[in-house]
């Protein structure tokens, strides 16, 4: 699912060791280095930009606010971060991470050439690249050009993304807190709609409530017409919408919680079908369950309604430091739920006229089944996530 990107992230992003201790990063770095050795890579370049920086945040905690940023990880020795912005801006950049060596990116090709030139003394550089899939063409060309004289690139997204899939106990705490904030936002949205607010006002009320509850970032899409798909809140139109379909995402200490909700004074046919389909999927959610298992569970409940276009490609995806992370539970794929993973599962039904609905749940998959972390409207246990982390 795509949300509207923001030009600059403004929330509280400084690294907070009380929430994510250094030991957590040390364990991650050790795992990354083990995986690196298995691939034959001599060094790792981790990329992130303000829209997508899950891999970079996993290793360093760093959130690039101004443009692309890279972490250079060798098999031994300190990690270096190269961040967009001038030398005078590194003071605030350093606050975002446990990594001590944060430098201006400058000319990416020249900066990296210098680093690779130092490394090549130990032999040809096999540069693992993580987060390269989302890198824009210009920096990718610069990286490729920089490495050309010293070695080559090995793209190792799949191997390293797998490290992020199983959440640590600390990560689970942060995800639970993100889910609590998501509930606060969702409640504010429902309350505003119940008080006859327009879609725009309701979305803004939800956004404010989430920030007040401790969110770093909030993204909301909402219907612009009765039963319309969730879309960015552009322009000043603020009409009442029923049903209102919304996609809400909040972030706490780097971790996203996201949910689909349908707010309606009445229980339309589409909402009943979508909720039944989601409940069916939740019953199937256990380690080893495949996308097609979940899809079959969903399909049993939807007819005669059609899949909502918002969810027609996938039944869900992993979630954590990225809004959408692996695995993508695509309808055409055979991705599996794994023990220790956190996922969003979603369903949506579209009938005639404005009779549309989208719903979702966030789950943590355990040894024998799954725990619902965030229930969508109408799902059991909705009010249970009310205790804050701090």
């Amino acid at each position, binding site marked *: *699912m*795509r*949300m*509207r*990107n*923001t*030009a*600059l*992230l*403004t*929330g*509280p*992003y*400084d690294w*907070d060791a009380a929430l994510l201790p250094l030991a957590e990063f040390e364990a991650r770095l050790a795992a990354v280095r083990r995986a690196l050795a298995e691939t034959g890579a001599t060094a790792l370049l981790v990329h992130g930009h*303000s*829209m997508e920086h899950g891999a970079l945040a996993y290793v360093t905690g760093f959130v690039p*606010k*101004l443009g692309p940023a890279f972490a250079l990880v060798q098999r031994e020795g300190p990690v270096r971060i190269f961040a967009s*912005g*001038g*030398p*005078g*801006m590194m*003071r*605030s*950049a350093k*606050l975002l991470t446990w990594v001590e060596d944060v430098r201006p990116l400058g000319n990416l090709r020249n900066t990296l050439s210098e680093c690779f030139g130092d490394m090549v003394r130990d032999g040809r550089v096999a540069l693992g690249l993580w987060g*390269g*899939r*989302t*890198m*824009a*063409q*210009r920096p*990718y060309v610069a990286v490729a050009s920089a490495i050309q004289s010293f070695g080559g690139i090995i793209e190792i997204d799949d191997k390293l993304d797998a490290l992020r899939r199983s959440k640590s106990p600390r990560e689970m705490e942060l995800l639970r807190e993100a889910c609590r904030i998501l509930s606060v936002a969702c409640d504010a949205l429902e309350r505003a709609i119940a008080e006859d607010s327009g879609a725009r006002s309701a979305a*803004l009320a939800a*956004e*404010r409530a989430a*920030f007040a509850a401790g969110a770093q970032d909030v993204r909301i899409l909402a219907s*612009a017409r009765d039963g*319309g*798909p*969730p*879309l*960015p*809140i*552009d*322009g*000043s139109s603020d009409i009442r919408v029923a049903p209102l379909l919304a996609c809400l995402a909040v972030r706490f200490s780097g971790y996203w919680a996201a949910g689909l909700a349908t707010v309606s004074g009445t229980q339309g046919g589409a909402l009943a079908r979508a909720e039944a389909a989601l409940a069916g999927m939740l019953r199937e959610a256990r380690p080893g369950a495949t996308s097609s298992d979940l899809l079959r569970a969903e399909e049993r409940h939807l007819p005669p309604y059609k899949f909502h*276009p*918002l969810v*027609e*490609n996938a039944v869900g995806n992993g979630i954590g430091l990225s809004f959408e992370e692996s695995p993508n539970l695509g309808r055409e794929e055979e991705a599996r739920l794994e023990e220790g993973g956190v996922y969003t599962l979603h369903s949506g039904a579209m009938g005639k006229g404005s009779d549309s609905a989208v719903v979702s749940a966030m789950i943590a998959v355990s040894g024998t089944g799954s725990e619902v972390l965030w229930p969508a409207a109408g799902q059991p246990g909705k009010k249970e996530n009310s205790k804050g982390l701090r």
Partner: protein
Amino acid sequence: MDFDARIEAMLRRMASDEIGLLIACSSGFQMPDRPDPVVHLSGYRSLGESFVLLRRDGTSKLIVSPAYDAERASAGRSPGAVIATNDLIGALSRELANVGKIPGCAAIVGIDAIPHFLAERLLAISEDAMLSFDDAFYNANGRKTAAEIGKARRAAEIAERGLERLHDVARPGVRECDVAVELNSYMRSLGADDNFLMLCSSPHNPAVMPSSNRKIESGDILITELTPSYEGQFVQICRTVVVGPPSALLQEKYDLVLRAMWAGIETIRPGIPMSRVCAAIDEVLAAAGYAEYCRPPHMRRRGHGLGCGSVAPGDVAANNDTVLEEDMIFVVHPNQYLPETGYLMCGEPVRVTATGAETLSARTADLAIINT
């Protein structure tokens, strides 16, 4: 100028450069100082990646992702048909196959900003396309339309209201990031759909930075650039606010930076190169003994164009010889580091008029004070 005139100017430029088909690319990530050719040609701000195909005969297609954004894309200004899809390259391949023989060559603009994997696939299906048309694309017509100018005026009003709000909420003990979040939320409530909002504070700022968790303290100099977008048009104002009474030295230095800004703004008129605006600002600061601070690493530019479509006329910089035209919009901001005070900010969005410049902000910069 209206939107149709922009498209006509683009078609004339395509004809003169013997381009039969233009492929404009967007990453879906819009910034105030970076161009987005899809927005420029269609007015549509995509959620995901998107393309506009514009043929020399004027027919066009807007291809957007994700598929569920179809309604919003269709409601935009795109002069041609709209395809909303989750398979961009598939849709693009089919459309390019349908285009058939074109007069002249194809050109791609904006490819540097889209994801590498998508760019490589685009290059694979349009292997002979020209990749050096970006500058010509924006030079074909860098003026804002009447509608964009209207949006810029509204965005400037929102920025100024945001500044008023800053005076309500910024005080010792409050975190920079909480002020920034509040200003963002407030400006969104006024109609802003995005904001590039830099805000930081310190007794001596080395540069303007994104907000941190630092708490504002008495004696700080708070610097900010408020950059709301209204219906896709960004505008920026830059301001300096002192927390507590300002020293005479700070006031003196701020007045210097303000004089430099006005020297730049008063230079603006159609027909001059942008570099002259930069030179006018630099001259004031150099005359006061700060010539070395008018060069990198202290200074890169004195302002910039404002997107998110075209950002013509580009940076207010010594090496930018873009000739100013009526109805171009950009921000003039000296934003100078001075060793005695640190980084000081003042900046106004301006529209080039027939005879000079109009500042879009109603109340221009001064050294503001938060009483503690």
